[in-house]
Structures are given as structure tokens and as C-alpha cells.
């Protein structure tokens, strides 16, 4: 865990693009909020691995949003049910249901549909917020933090050792 945090700080303090970190956050959010054993998560994983996305933030985001998903499951069910019962979409659902891809995607599952659409809707917000936080961290918080006595004490700790090892 300490290693993971150290890696996170390394990423935050590095010159990695804030948008790349935001992308990692969003992809991790998809993986965390939607049921894990779904084909679309393979695509998410492929995207996270193949594109130069920060894997540390991706994994932390996955962990964080998995916990949130547990709390939101009932809401995802209701949301997905409402989407899947929308009368104007029935024709499309029926057509998709008749295909192997449709079946494998499990779009007809309420929590899968609800959490996926929810993730889609909030991904721009999550991306922008992540970008804003990273930018502000780098501009303001990083310097202020370094001046704090607590941080100075931390710099003499094992955590800082790990951090610097990673950095080196």
C-alpha cells in the first residue's frame, strides 16, 4: 500500500500530463463501478494497458470506485431497469439481444446497464475534476506541503525512502 501511495505521489509530482492521469481515473472508475466480469471491462483493461495511462492511478481508482459501487448497486439496478424498459428502445434491445455480441455484453443486465451508462455520464466530470486537482496540486499544494513540518518529518521516513527509490 505504501508502495502504491508512493507511486501515486511520484505520478503527481512527475511531469505526466494531467489529462493522462484523468484518463487513468476514468478508466479505473469504469472498471470499479461496473460488474467486473463483463466483456467491456476487457476493453477497458486493454485501453489502460495499451495506452500510456498511469496504471497506479488506474488501480487506485478501480479500488475506490469498487467500494462506491457497492453502495450504489441498488441505484444502478433501478437506473438500468428504467433504461432497459424504455419503450422506444425496445426494438434496439431486441436486435442486440439476438446477436452473440449483445448476449456476451450482458447489456440486458440491469446493474451492468445502469452502472455503465452512469459511468459514461459522469466520466467527463471525473476527468475534468481530476485534471483540475492534479493541476492545482502541482501549482499550489505541492510547494505548500513541502514546507509543512509533518511532510519534512515524513521525508525522513521509510515512505520517503520508497518514494525516492521509485523516483531514482
Amino acid at each position, binding site marked *: 500500500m505504501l508502495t502504491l501511495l508512493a507511486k501515486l505521489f511520484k505520478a503527481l509530482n512527475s*511531469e505526466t500530463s494531467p489529462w493522462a492521469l484523468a484518463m487513468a481515473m476514468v478508466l479505473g472508475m469504469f472498471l470499479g463501478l461496473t460488474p467486473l466480469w463483463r466483456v467491456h471491462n476487457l476493453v477497458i483493461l486493454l485501453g489502460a494497458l495499451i495506452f*500510456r495511462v498511469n496504471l497506479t492511478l488506474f488501480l487506485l481508482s478501480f479500488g475506490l470506485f469498487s467500494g462506491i459501487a*457497492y453502495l450504489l448497486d*441498488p441505484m444502478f439496478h433501478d437506473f438500468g431497469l428504467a433504461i432497459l424498459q424504455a419503450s422506444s428502445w425496445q426494438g434496439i*434491445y431486441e436486435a442486440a*439481444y439476438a446477436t452473440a455480441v449483445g448476449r456476451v455484453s450482458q447489456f440486458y*443486465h*440491469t446493474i451492468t446497464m445502469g452502472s455503465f451508462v452512469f459511468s459514461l455520464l459522469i466520466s467527463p466530470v471525473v476527468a475534468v475534476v481530476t485534471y483540475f486537482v492534479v493541476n492545482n496540486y502541482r501549482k499550489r499544494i505541492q510547494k505548500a506541503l513541502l514546507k509543512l513540518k509533518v511532510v519534512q518529518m515524513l521525508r525522513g521516513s521509510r515512505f520517503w525512502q520508497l518514494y525516492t527509490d521509485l523516483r531514482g
Partner: protein
Amino acid sequence: MATVHGFTGVVMKRSVIRWPGLAVFGGIVALIVIVSWLFLDAILKVSMEYGLGRVNGAEVNIARVEHEWSPLTLRAYGVQATDAAKPTHNQVQLESFSADISAAELLLGRIHIEQLDVLGVRVDQPREQGEGEVYVTPSKDDVKNWASANWEQLKVSLPSTDEIVQQVGLQTDQVLADAEQKIEQQRTQFNDAKAALPDKEKIAAYQQQIKEITEGDVEGLGDVAARKKKLDQLKDAIREDKAAIERFRAQLSESAEIVKTQIARVKDAPGNDIDRIQNFFQLNETGLQNVTGLLLGDRARQWSEYLLLAYEQLAPMLARSANSQTVEKARGAGESLSFVEADAPPEFWIKNARTEVLIAGTAVNIDWQNITHQHNLLGQPTTYQARVDNSDLWNAFNLDGELSLLESGIDAKQQWQLKGANLKSLGLSESDELTASIASALLDSDGTVLVRGNQLDGEAIIRMLDLEMLAQGSSKITNAIAAALKQLNRLDINTEIAGDILSPSLSLNLNSDLDQQLGKLLGDTAMAEAQGKLNEIRADLTAKVEQQLGPNTELLQNITQLNSQAGDFNQQLEELLKSKIEDNLKDKLKDRLFGNS
């Protein structure tokens, strides 16, 4: 999305693609495939236990699952489905099943099984591994509605004579008191009327006066007129007395009638009381509860679970799989909706199945066609047939039926005939109160069952011929029942089957003439025991009645006697009224005028 990274003063623009990531992804996918491949049987086992458990409403255990890729075949061994209403037992268990699955349809998300073979089906078996977990607890209303739960609840008991006497409330004393009061009233009226009656002296005086008026010397016409006037006055007095006598006689008749009635009531009172006590000993069907249900209920339920296998096991599972509302949702499990088109094949379809059901060691094969929960897509019902002739257990057995899951619910029909089933040493009751078993019997049964909109309605007749029963009770009542059971040599039982097919169980009502037979026999037994006490009661009541009857009978005799006497007086007065003064006077005057005197 380029990343700029400073390194010894050289600025290098890195590619957005991280090619080693592709290799890692490939590795992860390969790992998932390998793990799935290696542990597919275990994954299938857990998935099937979970899925079937949700549909069953209670824990499902599978000992082992095997698969073959070509042809795609799935085999499972030791499948046990817990009974949600009785978690200590399996609702159904099977030794193994083998399913030939269509791979092409599976790729399109449909489970089409060309042939399903199910071996060693048993129902209502105790769970060896202990109580199973229940996911959907059946409501109290769903639990089988047996006539009685056990012998201990048999409320009827043979009453003691004292209890009965207390409950009956003997009426002889009351009758005696009523009669006494009424007769006493008549006695008073009788005495009053008697006091107002003219006595013998008064009648003799009337006779003397009439004689004086109509006899003796006549002084002339004036004297005749005076005598006539006197006679008329006398007759008026006689008429008043005659009217009094007639009223008295009417009163006597009324009193006699009342006294007679009361005497009759008093005489009948002890007999009526004894009759009422005896009636109290006759136990009716309600008092006995349903001994047929008590005795044969468990066994009939067991038989029905085999006969109604399609309804009790398959139909509820199909219906639950078709309707997610009937399966309790696990948190976070979500719900899979079906968007199948109207002309698409069913998503789950077992084209042919053979189930080998084990009944007392005999295998009965039931052939099934078109098992699905989407009969509207298939356009055909699920059908099943079984025919076993000349088996060790019976001469002939036929069963056929069909069922469909429609929007309105389950529609189904089934009929069966069983001829010459040999029952030997069949335990019926092993309770502390009563042990009973059928030593031997020949059983015939036929019945029909209809299901419309999930509501099941059926009836069956069970005939037991050449019946020989062994029974022993541990109390007065169960001993009497045991004695009655041992006398039975034929028993016809009408069975009514009803209930909601989606509930975990159905209700059975059993009726036969056994209850009436037992009621009569128990009544006779109780009466025999109570006879001595009844004789005492009868003697006691009769003595009381005799004591009162003596004076009353005497009163009745007096009334009768006096009535007769009053009749004589009435006659005499009537005669007196006929007396005429004119004739005597004429004679006297003639004598005087013509010198005859």
C-alpha cells in the same frame, strides 16, 4: 496524449501506445482462459448451485460436475434441492443427470438441450448434510394444510359418565317440579269446584220439595197456580246447580287431561335423560377430527409428490425462472431482462428428457418433451408420459400430462390410473399415541388434475381392497381407534388436491367413511363402559318419579271418580227438571169434580 519527460537535457516525445501493455493484456486474458479451463467444472458447479438455488428458493447442492467439449455435454452427480418448506429434507434429489447441449445455440446465448437423462430421482428425502439454507421462506399459508398435524393433537377423548351427566344436565327433576306445580294447581281448582257442587242431600231436598209441590190435596185453581210458581222457582235453582255441575265436569276433564299429560311427562323423564346421555356418547366426525387425514395424510402426501412431480417440482422452478419477481433478489445481483423476439426460439429448451424416478426400489421412467419456460415461443406445451405394467409393485400404471407457462400463469392437465398396487408392511403412524401399518392391501387409484392460472384443482380416488391393518394404541381413544382399524377390510378415500402451484406445496384433503365408522365404534365402547353407571342413574330417576306418581295417579282416579259421580247428579237433576205440575193438578181437579177421591 504525449508525455514530455526531461532526461539529461534531451527532450524525447514518447509514443501514446504502450506496446508491452498489449503483451500484458494478452497474458491476463490467457490466464483467465487457462484458469477457466482448468477450473471449469468447479465454476459450473458453483454457478449451477447458485442459479438453481435461486430458482428453487432454497439451497441446491451438487456433488460433482463434469463436461465434455465434443459433443458438448454436461454431467452432474448428486444433485439435491432443499425443500424450502422443510429444510431438513430435499424436495427432490437425483443421482445424476446428463445434458447434450447445442454448442451453436449456446454461442447465441440460448441453452438448447437435445437430450436430458436424469437418473435416480427421489422426492422428500432427509438431507444427510443437515438443514439446507432457505432463500425464500414460504408463508404460513403455503405450508401444507393437513387435517391434523399429529396424533397428540387428537382432541377427542372418551368422556366419563359423571362428566357427561354434568354436561347433559338431567331434566327429570325439573320435569317433576313442573308437573308437581301444574298438578297442584289442578288439585286446588278441583277442590274449589268440588266445594261448589250440590251434594246428595241437596238433591234429596229437591226431590222432596218437588214431591210436596206435585203431590197432596189441591185447593183449587189458585192453589195450582201457586204450586206451579213454586215449581218454576225450584227448577230455576236446579238449573243453576246443573250448570255448576256441567262446569265442574268440564273443569274435571281439563284437569284430568293436564294431570294425564304431566304424569306421562314424568314417566318419560328418566328415559329421556338416559337417551340424552347416550346421544352424548356418540362422537361425531368433528369430534374425532379427520382420522383419515391423520392416519394416511403423510403417506398420501408422499404419493402425491411422486404423482405430481411435474407440478410440485418442475412447474414452480420453470415459473420462477420465467418470472424474476418470484425469486428473491440478492443485493447487487441485479436482474437480467429478456428481449427475445416473438419468433425466436426459446432461450431454455430441453427437447427430450427421460427421468428415472425411484419408487420403493422400482424405477419408473417418465419421458418428457419440450421442457421450457417459454411455451409462447415454442407454440407447444411440455408433455410427459409414464407407463409401467406388471412391475413388482403394481399391475398397471399410466400417467400422462402436459403443462404450459402462459402470461396468465400455468395451465396444465394430468391424469393417471394405477391398478393392483401391492402394499405390504407400509407404516402409517409411528407416534407414541398410535402405531399403525398396513400389513397388506391391494390399492387402485385414479385421478385427474387441472391447473388454470396457477390454481390447481384435482381429485383422486384411492381404493384399498383386501385391507389388513396392524394397529396399537396407548390410550383409551387410540386403543379404540386401533381396534376399529383392525376391523377394516376395505377403505375408499376421496382425495381433493388444491392450491397455488407456485407455493412450495399443495393441500390435500382426505375423506373416507373411516371417521364415521370410528365414531360409532368409539361411542359403543364408551357406552359399554358407562352402562353400569347409567343403570344407577335410571334407577335413581325412576324412584323419584314413582314417588311423585303415586299421589298424582290417586288424584287422577279421584277426578275420574268424581266426574262419574257428577254425571249421576247431572242425570238426576235432568230428571227432576222434567217434573210437571199441570198433569198432577188436572188429575186432582178431575177427582174432585167427578167424585173419584
